[in-house]
């Protein structure tokens, strides 16, 4: 049995690992090159790239396996017709409107697509049946032998395609006018246009090209698996992100090299760690995420600030927040109405709803509490964290273990869980908050994946096969085993933390965060310590999520990670909250309730559950029109309409519709989804 770590590798071993690592290294490289191409030519870190690959694989399967088309015809259709059309559709319908938006805004939109596209495809693909035996680009499966090893024809096709793509793209960027124009358009479409470049046309070509590459990857990599399934592509893509990071999201040759190195490193680790040791079970599955995390922190090429459009300052001013156009009377009225709605909603839930809907509302309230954590980290601090479900899970596991092993009162352990989550959040924030924009988001994603792959399987944390039990609280004679009492507890905690978030927003911390979002340099010059404030915000955010997680565990009776806090939920949550309005508590509450109630309503109507994710994902497409969030936009228009009806308005307030907000500033209600501090000079910004 392999039991010892043998790091003294003979040359033959190294050659073996190289041979074994190259085929899968090329898989990573192919996907990573596609990611870099998209980022480099469109400025979008396109998490939906895997979804585009999946579409092509599904189309290819349909026409080749089901319709039995000729191979060449099937490839041409899936890769060179459908795929570029999808790219053009995405650009024309969506990303063209976000061309000058900050990268993080485009990241959220791509997250929405990642959620929606696979579910849309599944509605028609293969009649809903398992799509076994995906056909490859090579008609017959043969193995070409190299001594003891062999490479099959599908792998060979992948290796050749990866090399050709890497060389061709490198040449295009280095030697062709189109490559230069693509980079110029990403840097500043307006500057490019001033120089006579048709920015629209160039961007459209970029999207068609990157989507074609996604399609090629989808078809090439399909035979890796026994069936065509979207999650497999996303799993590969997140691993490939490490290679893209190695290439600094800009260098095709380095990205290619990064993919190969990752493939070889995986073989080295797998071949030299004792296979069932804690070390191996921890490191092997999470290697790409550890590498990604370390690269983000220490790879010099990634520490530069994101480039922004030097002409971004010519954007029109953002719309006025809804709160600013309210008269005093209207403020009193809307707040009163809010109280009536909440109290009425709670009363209806308690006395009218049946047990199922009472349960749904309860869960929705708890999720809304967790969503407040996104309001803090995104709405106040202006960062996108993709690890909020992880912090919720930390809170839940802490509460579960403390009640199960130590017999502590669950209500106390829920708060302790929040403190533990906050501490983990602070520890994570210290190294990561110096990263900007999408790099910070990717670091949180790497952390979430590490947690899921390494820590969640541990029995001491999650309970292993059967989740650990978490009891309901008992306070005096009030037994929260009754869902009605539990709803009151959940609502009370939601109200408590909503007030806390409002206080933070209005207080010194909130003002500091706002100042930092305006201009970090200016804020620093007046004595604000960015790291301290942001670490605090991140810790508070993680703590709120942790408390929500503990509460969820108690509500469900067990620490169910897979059904509540899988990392993918964290991605959907961000999409939902940002779509509805990341700065608005009202939006967080609506988002939380929607997350639970929409699938429940669909279930009642016998509509496939897939539509819930489609709706959530498609919701992100409204981001182009309403970067401040749908709830905020609707509130503003409703208030304007009411005030028009009443025939008066406050001095200085405006009800005039504003042009689409392409470049919101810190007060725009977008939750900080704005351009980071310009890299050139503050003088470029509009006063």
């Amino acid at each position, binding site marked *: 049995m392999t039991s010892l770590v043998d790091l003294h590798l003979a040359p033959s071993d190294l050659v073996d690992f190289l041979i074994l690592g190259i085929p899968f290294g090329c898989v990573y490289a192919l996907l990573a090159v596609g990611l870099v191409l998209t980022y480099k030519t469109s400025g979008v870190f396109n998490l939906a790239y895997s979804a585009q690959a999946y579409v092509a694989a599904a189309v290819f399967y349909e026409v080749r396996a089901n319709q039995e088309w000729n191979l060449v015809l099937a490839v041409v259709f899936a890769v060179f017709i459908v795929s570029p059309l999808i790219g053009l559709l995405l650009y024309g319908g969506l990303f063209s409107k976000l061309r000058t938006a900050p990268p993080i805004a485009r990241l959220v939109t791509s997250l929405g697509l990642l959620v929606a596209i696979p579910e849309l495809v599944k509605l028609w693909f293969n009649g809903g049946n398992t799509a076994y035996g995906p056909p490859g680009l090579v008609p017959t499966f043969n*193995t070409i032998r190299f001594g003891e090893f062999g490479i099959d024809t599908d792998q060979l096709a992948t290796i050749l395609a990866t090399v050709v793509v890497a060389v061709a793209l490198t040449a295009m960027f280095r030697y062709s006018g189109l490559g230069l124009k693509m980079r110029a358009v990403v840097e500043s479409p307006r500057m490019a246009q001033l120089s006579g470049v048709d920015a629209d046309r160039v961007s459209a070509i970029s999207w068609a090209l990157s989507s074609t590459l996604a399609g090629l990857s989808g078809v090439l990599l399909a035979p890796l698996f026994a*069936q065509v399934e979207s999650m497999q592509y996303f799993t590969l893509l997140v691993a490939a992100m490490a290679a893209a990071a190695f290439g600094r999201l800009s260098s095709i040759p380095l990205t290619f090299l990064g993919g190969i190195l990752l493939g070889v490193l995986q073989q080295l680790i797998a071949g030299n760690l004792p296979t069932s040791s804690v070390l191996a079970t921890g490191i092997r599955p999470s290697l790409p995420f550890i590498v990604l995390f370390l690269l983000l922190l220490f790879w010099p090429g990634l520490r530069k600030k994101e480039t922004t459009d030097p002409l971004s300052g010519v954007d029109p001013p953002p719309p006025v927040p809804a709160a600013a156009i309210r008269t005093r009377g209207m403020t009193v009225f809307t707040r009163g109405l809010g109280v009536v709605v909440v109290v009425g909603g709670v009363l209806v839930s308690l006395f009218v709803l049946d047990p199922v809907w009472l349960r749904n509302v309860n869960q929705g309230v708890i999720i809304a509490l967790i969503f407040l954590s996104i309001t803090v980290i995104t709405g106040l601090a202006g960062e996108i964290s993709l690890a909020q479900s992880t912090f919720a899970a930390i809170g839940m596991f802490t509460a579960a273990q403390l009640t199960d092993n130590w017999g502590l*009162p669950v209500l106390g352990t829920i708060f302790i869980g929040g403190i533990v989550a906050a501490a983990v959040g602070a520890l994570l924030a210290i190294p990561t908050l110096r990263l900007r924009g999408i790099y910070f988001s990717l670091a949180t994603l790497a952390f979430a994946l590490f947690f899921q792959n390494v820590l969640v*399987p541990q029995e001491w944390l999650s309970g292993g096969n059967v989740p650990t039990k978490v009891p309901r609280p008992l306070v005096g004679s009030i037994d929260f085993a009754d869902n009605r009492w539990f709803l009151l507890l959940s609502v009370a905690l939601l109200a408590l933390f909503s007030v806390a978030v409002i206080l933070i927003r209005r207080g010194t911390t909130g003002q500091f965060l706002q100042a930092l979002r305006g201009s970090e340099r200016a804020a620093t010059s007046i004595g604000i310590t960015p790291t301290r404030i942001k670490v605090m915000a991140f810790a508070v955010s993680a703590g709120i999520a942790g408390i929500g997680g503990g509460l969820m565990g108690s509500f469900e009776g067990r620490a169910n990670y897979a059904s509540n806090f899988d990392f993918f939920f964290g991605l959907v949550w961000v999409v939902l909250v940002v779509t509805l309005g990341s700065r608005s508590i009202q939006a967080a509450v609506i988002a939380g309730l929607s997350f639970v109630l929409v699938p429940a309503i669909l279930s009642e109507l016998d509509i496939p559950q897939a539509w819930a994710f489609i709706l959530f994902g498609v919701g992100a497409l409204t981001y182009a029109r309403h970067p401040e969030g749908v709830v905020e936009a609707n509130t503003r228009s409703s208030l304007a309409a009411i005030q028009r009806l009443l025939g008066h308005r406050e001095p200085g307030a405006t009800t005039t519709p504003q042009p689409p907000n392409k470049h919101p500033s810190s007060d725009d209600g977008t939750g900080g989804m704005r351009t980071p501090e310009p890299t050139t000079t503050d003088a470029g910004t509009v006063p």
Partner: protein
Amino acid sequence: MRTRWMALLVLAGLGVAACSNSPSTTTTTAAPDDGSDGATTATVDPNGDYSENVPVDAPGVTDTEIRVGGVVSATNPLAASYDDAFLGTKAYFQMINEDYGGVWGRQLELVAERDDATTNNAREVEALLTQDDVFAVLPVATLLFTGADRLAAEGVPTFGWNVQEEWNGPTNLFGTRGYVCFTCGNSFLPWLAEDIGATRVASIGYNVPQSSECAEGNAAGIELSDEVELVYDDTSLQYGTADFSAPVKAMKEEDVDLVLTCIDANAAISLIKEMQRQDFDASVYLPNSYDHTLLEEFPDQMEGQYVRTDFAPFELSEKPDGLQTYLDWMDELGYPTNELTVAGWVSADMFVEGLRGAGPEFSREKVIAHLNGIDSYTAQGILDGLDWTVEHTDEGDPICQIVLQVEDNEFVPLYQDDPGKPWLCENANPTTVEEPFHQ
């Protein structure tokens, strides 16, 4: 600001000091007393008269029908057809209603077919209990079973495809596979290895609990043998991986001749493809791959490999009555024959057995009590014989299976030299490798 935070902490501290845990959720959830008196009972005569219709006051029961509802993970990340379990139940109910006029003068109706979308199991279970007004819950075929505690606490007769340990314990949860224990070692695997001439064995699984515990059980079984050695044991694979090159290289270097897997069928295909690339010729034991679609799509990879079933496979030359009836009805209705439809069919059969045994004045408690008195439930030969007097806990019911090998693109049942006794069984908790007995 600090004062506010201090006040908040003090308030929280006061709250914590005043509270404890609800007793209704701190004790181990178990079903109410199953009502059995400890004596064993035989299964009822399937051709008996069960037409007597007397008024019954029970949830989901009217003078003309008995309503049940099920929940499956129709929407799941594996793209597996768990909703086929509904077809099995519907087919069985159709047979009972058409051929026997229902049970106790009432038609059996599957009134709710719920999809828990993998993550909403507890909610859908709640809906079954409070919205759908069902007498029993069947079939259950889900990836997660977070509604188990609720079903156990309510004492609702529940039947389904049990691939989670939540089924163990509560006496009202009846899984078609009986008691499940992933970590339990059994002597069958080392016996099989010895029988096919394998001496150097490998075990692989993912780093997720269910898979790694299964691999742990395999390893424990091999430890029982003096002739078979476990030379490679790997539970560090990422769930969903398609890259098996390093494990295959290591197994090849260790001269492994039998690979025991605790991975899903998709990954098993990737594993075998990698073995073919590296020209590594060992047999593979695939406990989860009795899947005819998989065989049809990957004949080159499946050829020569071993699979197992805990129900009578369709290829048996002497088909038990229950299996033949199942196959006939599936054929008549155009439904697929697979593990999930079998699970739905057996769930329905078990329910009907309980219902008939409970008598015309049946109740949930009586159904549960009748089933828990049966010491050999076989679904007319589809199962080896579940002893429900001990099956809810690990108290020594023999473990039986049928092993098949793929030969010329077909599953061929092995060890069928004792007519009418297709099962290979071993006693629970073995300490040495024993020759399995036929049943």
